[in-house]
């Protein structure tokens, strides 16, 4: 069964968001998403410094089975990227909520967080 940690917010397009103490947000894909994709073999990482808008494509994840877009769950500037994923994309499968994080964004409009789903709502959607 997929895990849906309570302390995260989720987008309907299967990204998760964690609000950090400094106001930035960390982003990744959900356990459910990585299970659907299967073995991940390449990740087109977003670029540090890029400015993204909520719901825009920001990255592409390729598994053996399929290519899947990752959408920015929130608008802002990309301030850090998980470069380890370039050599070890499978980390996104093995620990989607910790070591497999994708990037950190400094939100330009934190009120967009209100539009994201809580764990229960997102889990219900994935059933």
């Amino acid at each position, binding site marked *: 069964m997929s895990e849906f940690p309570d302390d995260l917010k989720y987008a309907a397009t299967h990204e998760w968001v964690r609000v950090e103490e400094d106001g930035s947000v960390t982003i990744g894909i959900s356990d459910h998403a990585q299970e659907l994709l*299967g*073995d991940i073999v*390449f990740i*087109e990482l977003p670029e540090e410094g890029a400015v993204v808008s909520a719901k825009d494509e920001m990255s*592409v994840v*390729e598994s*053996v*089975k399929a*290519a899947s877009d990752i959408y920015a769950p929130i608008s802002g500037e990309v301030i850090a990227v998980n470069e380890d994923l370039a050599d070890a994309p499978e980390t996104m*499968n093995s620990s989607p909520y910790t070591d497999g994080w994708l990037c950190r964004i400094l939100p330009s409009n934190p009120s967009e967080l209100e539009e994201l789903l809580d764990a229960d709502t997102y889990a219900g959607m994935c059933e």
Partner: protein
Amino acid sequence: MGQQTALYAKHLEAGAKIVDFGGWDMPIQYKSLIEEHTAVREQAGVFDVSHMTIVDIDGADAERWLRYLLANDVARLKDTGHALYTGMLNENGGVIDDLIVYRMASGFRLVVNCATREKDLAWMQSQQAGFTVTLTERPELAILAVQGPKAIDIVCRIIGQRFSSDDSASVGGLKNFYGVKLDDWFVARTGYTGENGVEIMLPNTEAPAIWDLLLDAGVKPIGLGARDTLRLEAGMNLYGHDMDESISPLSANMAWTIAWEPADRDFIGRRALEAQRQHRDTLPVLTGLVMEERGVLREGLRVECTLSDGTTQDGVITSGTFSPTLKHAIALARIPADAQQCAVDIRGKLVPVRLVKPGFVRHGKKVFS
């Protein structure tokens, strides 16, 4: 809910993710496609392929009929148990299905694809006029493909326990594309992975116990996902993707399966193929593509080909994947025969690819240069 093989409960027990495959509930993968793929390349894996259709052909005209029905020539099968791969073509030379035919002590055994079962049987029945043949489906048999460098040794040990040491030795001594009947089992040195291995047809009632023995011996269960990456690395076609009724075997890397000789053997599709053969250099070809940069080649992607006169013409990827063995993308593509250079359109970006003969990995090793 779809049809289930005799091993359905065993798949669930092994943690399989089940999908619909041609009306059957089949395991797409257990834990990880890449781990399953690697197990077959380095150790041994077992595939439940019981969804495939076994048809036994008997009757006074069995051989004469198959020589008419199939593009390859079953008269080439001199020994009991010998097998060949062939297309079954329509009058236009299009591929209705690809299949393996075994010569049995009396008659022949065909193994055809699951998704094409109904049209195959309807076609075979429609071509029987003037021949004394009987077709018998064998749904009471399961099929286990055991593949990988350790597969034959492990199967021989199990055969030794179930039958006798003589039977074990006869399985161990099988040449490629030969099979042997042991009571109501049939064990053949065939497969769809590019590794050594066997395919075992055995009663449904015995299949779960043999599955358990295989797993106890360290053989890993392999889903349809890894079956696809393994066959594609081996450069083997998948019906409905790399060829279908609109495609000539000459454009599907299947020219080697057409038995032109003897010239007086009339088989369905022969006339159309002979006409195509007259202008063969204008027919598209199925070739291998290799892309070593990041990214994955996928079925349906456009291939922009530069011809020798400098003009461009499009081809298409018919099967593509990330190769778990080679760690980069590979594909089969149908392209103009004259293509000199190719690039694949990946999300609007043209990425150059290398053309190679279809066939990327054999016995665990890269085979192209």
